[in-house]
């Protein structure tokens, strides 16, 4: 299989799986990391060693790392944690985000809205760009805003956002605002040092950086106050109760270290493949690339194919041994047109005809060429049947 869906998940690096297995299999590391006895202390040491590696990769100290079960939990903890704490302490706690955010942010924001929290969204242009001016405009319009949540890199388009610039502009106007960035799709693909971003909270996930699924972290400014989402334990200083998973944390730690070490080489590699793919797509008629081509994280290409249902293209490519996606993996199966693409003003039918290709470190130029060969065949096949309109319009088929 040619795997071109790395924004959905990445293969676990062998060094990572070795590290996980070593922790799991070590008879001396089976105690609870919170236990007082020596057995507990040994597990705690492993956990903290992992935390140190994660902290180092992001340029922070260990007190700034809260371990979670993944990116979704980190995003939930950031939004619920910040907005609810601010509300509890009578601070401004309205939430500003964008229509392009991952469902784990968007749904958390709408849940907060249902709790009576003021929420609003920054305007985006047709390429999905967001600049400091748009954020400042919302801030001056809505003084009740106390939390801003914007991704560092969009999961469907690969757009990279000028979060440091936005944060700097926001701080000048409103130094009290808590700024969160969802960096799940950015870590491992671009250089990220938490202090330079000037944000308060940053989410990351293990399985997007060749680490294991089921582990992630929320990086935060020292002293940040968060209302915990879970209750029932003192772990992670009460921010995230529940016995930690030392093996997965160690897996995340090794993945984070490897991704920093390999970053320059990785970027050059995937950017070259992306350029090759873009050149091929630009030569096809009826194929339009979505998003901000100038500010792309380097591995993601999202395109729409005129007159084709994306799902049928995906199935065709899959049956030809090429794995891509039609949008966020979470929305696959529901087959609603992508909210991100609709927010760019792309019509529903075109949005349903979109494909996301996300390149990873192990891909080769042969992989890209195979896609560029299979795609026109798939397009011809889908366009050549009654299928393109299927699933779009009402009463488009009369069975007579």
């Amino acid at each position, binding site marked *: 299989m040619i795997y071109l869906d790395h924004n959905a998940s990445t293969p676990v690096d062998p060094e990572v799986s070795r590290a996980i297995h070593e922790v799991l299999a070590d008879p001396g590391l089976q105690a609870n990391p919170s236990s007082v006895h020596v057995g507990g202390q040994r597990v705690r040491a492993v956990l903290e060693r992992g935390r140190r590696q994660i902290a180092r990769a992001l340029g922070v100290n260990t007190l700034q790392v809260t371990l979670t079960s993944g990116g979704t939990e980190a995003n939930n903890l950031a939004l619920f944690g910040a907005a609810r704490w601010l509300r509890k302490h009578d601070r401004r706690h309205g939430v500003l985000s964008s229509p392009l955010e991952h469902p784990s942010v968007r749904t958390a924001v709408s849940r907060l809205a249902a709790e009576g929290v003021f929420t609003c969204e920054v305007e985006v242009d047709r390429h999905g760009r967001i600049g400091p001016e748009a954020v400042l405009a919302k801030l001056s319009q809505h003084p009740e805003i106390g939390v801003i949540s914007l991704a560092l890199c969009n999961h469907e388009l690969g757009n990279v956002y000028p979060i440091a610039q936005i944060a700097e502009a926001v701080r000048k106007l409103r130094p009290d605002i808590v700024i969160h960035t969802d960096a799940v799709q950015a870590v491992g693909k671009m250089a990220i040092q938490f202090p330079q971003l000037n944000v308060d909270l940053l989410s990351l996930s293990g399985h997007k950086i060749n680490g294991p699924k089921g582990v992630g972290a929320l990086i935060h400014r020292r002293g940040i106050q968060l209302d915990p989402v879970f209750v029932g334990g003192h772990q992670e200083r009460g921010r995230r109760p529940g016995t930690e998973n030392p093996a997965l944390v160690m897996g995340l730690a090794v993945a984070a270290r490897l991704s920093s070490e390999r970053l320059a080489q990785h970027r050059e590699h995937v950017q070259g493949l992306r350029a090759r793919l873009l050149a091929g797509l630009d030569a096809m008629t009826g194929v339009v690339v979505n998003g901000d081509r100038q500010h792309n994280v380097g591995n993601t290409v999202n395109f729409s194919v005129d007159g084709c249902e994306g799902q049928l293209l995906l199935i*065709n490519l899959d049956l030809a041994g090429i794995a891509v996606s039609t949008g966020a993996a979470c929305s696959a199966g529901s*087959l609603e047109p992508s909210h991100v693409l609709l927010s760019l003003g792309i019509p529903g039918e075109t949005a349903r005809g979109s494909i996301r290709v996300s390149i990873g470190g192990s891909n080769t130029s042969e992989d890209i060429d195979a896609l560029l060969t299979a795609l026109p065949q798939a397009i011809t096949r889908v366009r050549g049947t009654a299928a393109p309109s299927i*699933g779009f319009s009402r009463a488009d088929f009369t*069975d007579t």
Partner: protein
Amino acid sequence: MRVVCAMSGGVDSSLAAALMVEAGHDVVGMTMRLYNASEAPGKGRGGTCCSPAEVDLARQVCDQLGVPHYTVDESERFSDHVIGDFAREYAGGRTPNPCVRCNEHVKFAPLLARAEAISADLLVTGHYARIEQGHLLRGVDPSKDQSYFLFAMGEHVLPKVRFPLGGWNKDRVRERARDLDLPNWDAPDSVELCFVGGRSHADVVAQQVQARGLDTNALAPGNFVDSEGNVVGTHQGIHTVTVGQRRGLRIAGTKPRYVLRVLPERREVVVGSVDALSRRELELHDLRWFGPRPEGPIRGHVQIRHRSPAAAATIEVDNNLARVRFDEPVRAIAPGQAGVVYSGDRVLGGGWIEVVEANA
């Protein structure tokens, strides 16, 4: 050969897919998503076709068979042609047949188009019906035969469709599914409409009429009248009754009364004795034929509902309308149901029951 197996998550379509794998075909499983959130069925008895749990089962079966599985969205088409039709027909005083509508508009032509788009040659389903020499025939298990539901599937799709279970009876299907360790081998047969799921038909109609902005007057109570027009009781809306119904009418009196006719424009329901339910003639509209339209009167058997024997009749076809005259009177002919014309086991075609002559 690549084939698409339409998989509901039930044992029949699962076994059909398994048989195609055994036959050496390149099988691709597809399950249709048929409901959006507001139309999602409640908890029904037995299996509910294409619900999330059933989609999981279909996926599980495909994984077991080692073939890919995809979910395709047909909720819009299903909403328009099946659930919408169900609501409009009941609110118009008729008795709809959603399974025929689903086969007509959702299950075959659209899935076949998708199959073609992925270079598949055939569409396979778990229906109990046979296709032989280009003809649609009854399934061999008389208790499971689904040919009645298939009369409107479309002549042009027939050559590209296969029903591997047409020659099987249900017991053998379950036995084989158990031998193959299919997870749904003993799942109960679905006993109700998939989108109704434990609710009454009347509740579903009322909800859909409101949701779709249809005329809610149809849902208001009205009179039961006898054949002379005398008011004999009050009904709770014409959508709550169906021709031939006896139970639950709540009409005072000693002799049993049956629904004979529904008069939607007056919101009246005509009731009478069981003898008055029998009719010798009906009209079929919106005809479909497998093969050329019959010329002149033909002899055949006409089936007016699922699970009722086809009755001998003379059928006179006049363009898109057919007059059916039964040899013997037939009981409880409901406008809105399908009238399917058979020659022996073979489905010639059929239409929708529109007019029932008053004479017995």
